[in-house]
């Protein structure tokens, strides 16, 4: 069951959606969410650009995406209806706030006639609710006044949905009491509106039919519901503990990465030092300083900010300091669509630097995966003394899913000892490489006898002294590249989710946030009779050592990406394999059906395939 809350950006649809999600989670449903809000914090009220929506899929089986077409749409005004109706499933339920359908709002949304009256909604189950007057009536004794009265109407809608979908009411009531404990009148108004909406559902004939979604079957364990940004922040705190280092997060506010800063800045009691720098360059500059000084040093941003950090990433690469650089990708280029997801920074992550400066690149596959990915990025950065780029995107960052909590006592030990004594007869050689990892020693200020200087100028092998020697530059360039390339031997091989005993007719290769949509499409294709396998890459640089061998098992490889074909180019160039792409750059995730259709296109209708066999 897919439910979408849509209204004006001031209508509180994100809150209503999040509360509905929370109530569903406590009820034990599996769920996935997809918030969508305009970049302008408040676009003009009532207009199409001002529409904000929040979609949640609840189900009684494990689900992988926030769903394609909603089964139920809550539209708080004509613009929300106009923008979201095309997505609604035929026969779906539409709940509208009738009082917003006046001439002015209809005109703003571009409606010539009122869709509630002209019969255009006949193929849907329409539930009309005079939400504003009912909300006004419900909150009249709570002490709120003026504009605050109508602000509670999102809770009215939420109450109605709670009844329709049989959600428990206590979590929302408790949340209101907690959230607005300093504004008791607001808490009272929201609760009153919520209950009024719930009761409206109970008492009106129009909404007599109720839906029932049974709790999901998930592996046993303790679960929480988590967004990608929160899981990433927690993962960084966990990584610092696993590395036995203090965490430093230097950053500059940018959508959609800021929530990582917000979350980390709350946790000073973990010894976390967050630093809101004056700009993106200072953010990574401070992080480089913190890395030199002996911290787990992390910076985070989105595409435009990462572009500004490019020169500093090269410095971290040249000085061989451990650094995690988080890029929560958004639709670009330039300011682009800051609140929309895209995977278009992959080639930029691999190649967007001056000079020969390959750095490890990892990608997060889903909101809860951000926790483990953060620890893994830190592990590689510390062990190999290198900046690591960790790719997220807006879909992961703001989307949420149930997360089976790990046992924090079993986190991997990713600590790396600091150098404490000279490593040669000639004293301390800051660029004397480890035989196994090719990594250089990490000697932090305050350590007697290991005083040394690093910097952006080319270093002489071993001594780290400035060198313009041609052979040395070749050697150091090769050494740095080799160090990063050998990480392939220290990461898990890519695994294939294989339909049968033998490789199937098609391999779908993905990376990042497309994981859920690909997984679901593969499942549907298999149900329809296709032999489709799926592999998902966490490591984009270097690739897992077995990737070429895996790819060569398949005649057909499809690479779906929310970009113009970045991984596709890499795979073709690296392995000379004629993989094909499915590419979408629309600022929204793949729909399962889009991938499914492409599978059918490549393999033929399932019946034809069966006939050929």
């Amino acid at each position, binding site marked *: 069951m897919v439910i979408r809350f849509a209204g004006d950006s001031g209508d509180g649809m*994100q*809150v209503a959606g*999040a*509360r509905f999600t*929370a109530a569903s*989670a*406590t009820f*034990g449903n599996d769920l996935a969410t997809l918030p969508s*809000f305009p970049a302008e914090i408040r676009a003009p009220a009532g207009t199409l650009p001002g529409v904000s929506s*929040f979609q949640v899929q609840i189900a009684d089986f494990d689900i992988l995406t926030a769903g394609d077409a909603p089964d139920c749409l809550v539209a708080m005004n004509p613009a929300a209806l106009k923008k979201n109706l095309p997505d609604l499933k035929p026969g779906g339920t539409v709940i509208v706030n009738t009082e917003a359908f006046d001439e002015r709002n209809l005109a703003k949304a571009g409606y010539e006639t009122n869709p509630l009256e002209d019969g255009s909604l006949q193929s849907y189950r329409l539930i009309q609710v005079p939400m504003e007057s009912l909300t006004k009536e419900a909150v009249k004794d709570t002490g709120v006044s003026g504009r605050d009265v109508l602000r509670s109407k999102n809770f009215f809608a939420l109450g109605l949905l709670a009844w329709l979908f049989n959600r*428990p009411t206590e979590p929302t009531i*408790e*949340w209101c009491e*907690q959230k607005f404990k300093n504004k008791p009148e607001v808490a009272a108004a929201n609760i009153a509106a919520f209950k009024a909406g719930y009761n409206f559902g109970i008492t009106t004939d129009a909404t007599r039919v109720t839906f029932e979604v049974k*709790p999901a*079957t998930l*592996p*046993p364990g303790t*679960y*929480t*519901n*988590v*967004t990608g*940004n929160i899981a990433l922040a*927690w993962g960084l*705190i*966990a990584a610092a503990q696993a590395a036995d280092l203090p965490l430093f997060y*230097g950053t500059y506010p940018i*959508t*959609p990465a800021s929530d990582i800063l*917000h979350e980390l800045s709350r*946790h000073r*009691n*973990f*010894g976390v*030092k967050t*630093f809101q720098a*004056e700009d993106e*360059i*200072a*953010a990574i*500059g*401070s*992080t*480089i*300083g*913190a890395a*030199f*000084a002996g911290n787990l040093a992390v910076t985070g941003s989105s595409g435009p900010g990462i572009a500004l950090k490019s020169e*500093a990433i090269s*410095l971290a690469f040249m000085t061989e300091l451990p650094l995690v650089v988080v890029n929560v990708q958004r639709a670009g280029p330039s300011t682009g669509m800051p*609140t929309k997801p895209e995977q278009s920074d992959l080639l930029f992550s691999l190649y967007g630097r001056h000079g020969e400066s390959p750095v490890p690149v990892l990608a997060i596959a889903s909101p809860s995966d951000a*926790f483990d990915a953060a620890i893994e990025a830190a592990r590689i950065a510390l062990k190999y003394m290198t900046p690591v780029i960790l790719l997220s995107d807006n879909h992961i*960052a703001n989307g*949420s899913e149930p997360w089976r*909590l790990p046992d924090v006592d079993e986190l991997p030990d990713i600590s790396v000892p600091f150098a404490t004594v000279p490593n040669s007869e000639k004293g301390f050689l800051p660029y004397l490489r480890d035989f196994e990892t090719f990594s250089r020693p990490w000697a932090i*200020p305050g350590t007697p006898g290991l*005083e040394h*200087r690093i*910097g952006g100028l080319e270093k002489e092998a071993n001594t780290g002294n400035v060198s313009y020697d041609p052979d040395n530059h070749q050697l150091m360039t090769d050494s740095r590249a080799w160090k990063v390339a050998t990480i392939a031997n220290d990461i898990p091989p890519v695994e294939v989710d294989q339909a049968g005993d033998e490789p199937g007719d098609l391999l779908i290769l993905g990376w990042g946030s497309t994981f859920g949509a690909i997984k679901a499409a593969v499942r549907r294709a298999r149900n329809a009779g296709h032999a489709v396998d799926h592999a998902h890459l966490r490591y984009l640089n270097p690739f897992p050592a077995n990737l070429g061998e895996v790819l060569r098992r398949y005649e057909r490889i499809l690479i779906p990406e929310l970009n113009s074909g970045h991984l596709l180019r890499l795979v073709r160039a690296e392995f000379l394999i004629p993989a094909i792409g499915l590419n979408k750059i629309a600022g929204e995730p793949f729909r399962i059906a889009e991938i499914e259709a492409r599978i059918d296109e490549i393999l033929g209708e399932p019946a034809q395939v069966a006939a050929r066999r």
Partner: protein
Amino acid sequence: MTVTHTRADFQTDQEVRWCPGCGDYTILASVQNFLASLNRPREQFVFVSGIGCSSRFPYYMNTYGIHSIHGRAPAVATGIALTRPDLSVWVITGDGDALSIGGNHLIHAMRRNVNLKILLFNNQIYGLTKGQYSPTSEPGKRTKSSPHGSIDHPFNPISLALGAEATFVARTLDMDREHTTEILQAAYEHEGTAFIEIYQNCNVFNDKAFIQLTGKEERVHNRINLEAGKPITFGPNGEKAVVLEGGEAKIVDTAAVDPGRILVHDPTRSDPTVAFALSRLSHGPYGPTPLGIFRKVRRPTYESLLDHQVATAIAKQGPGDLATLIRSHGTWTVDANGHAVEAGANGAPKAGSNGAG
């Protein structure tokens, strides 16, 4: 821990490669001698620089050091100072590095009062790139990149630092090692950002830029030594004095004014107005120019405030517990049959905070 050092302990085995006669040599010697005098273990010093002639400085200091990116030294140094208050962190920069490409980082380090000692070698020219005008070059200056004369209005670095809320602002001269050492000592003792503009002669691309302050004939007429608690007078026999008039600092004949009107220097004034007025006595080293400490006031350092927040949070909430943290948004339990058996009251996180609320 105290140790005994000589200048040699702070020298590296690297050949110093500034042009012969460069003012940087004198500054390097002053700094090395000063650090040796502190008897503090040298591993506790970090020198961070950007790009430019002066920024080669860390390679010649036998301490920890980073030669970073053009203009970014204050940012890199901030990351060190914030996480390691046990260290003494120094920034070496120049007029192009600090005031042009790195202007943003310089002002923000100063307003935050990060415990950094910032030495700005001001030679009023780009040396490393071979002679273009800089943000402190005088108007009309003819250089390779301004053959018709520079039309850029220059910064007054002292005024800029005062405007950026710096808590310690001083100016000295490369050639005057005694004065440089005095200023270094005061800066070292200051808790917070200490900004020192050092007039430094580039004998290749901008020779004698500071002749009014260094020339045997000229300096006695033009050096205005700022000394705390003393009336500000200068000249061979103190025949010139500084007074405040209508909010501005003015140079007058000492004999012509009531001695009570002569400004008594007090760098600890909490309001920077008088220090700013003094900084406007000259817009460059072209006539009577104040040298010394313009401002020295107390304000908590950024890192002390940050450490205080950490300590307070730990005192109030106890040391962070990861297992508790990941359960803080509410949990539910799924049993072996796949059923939710326990539900917390608050199972979901907040929505993305940049949307409607």
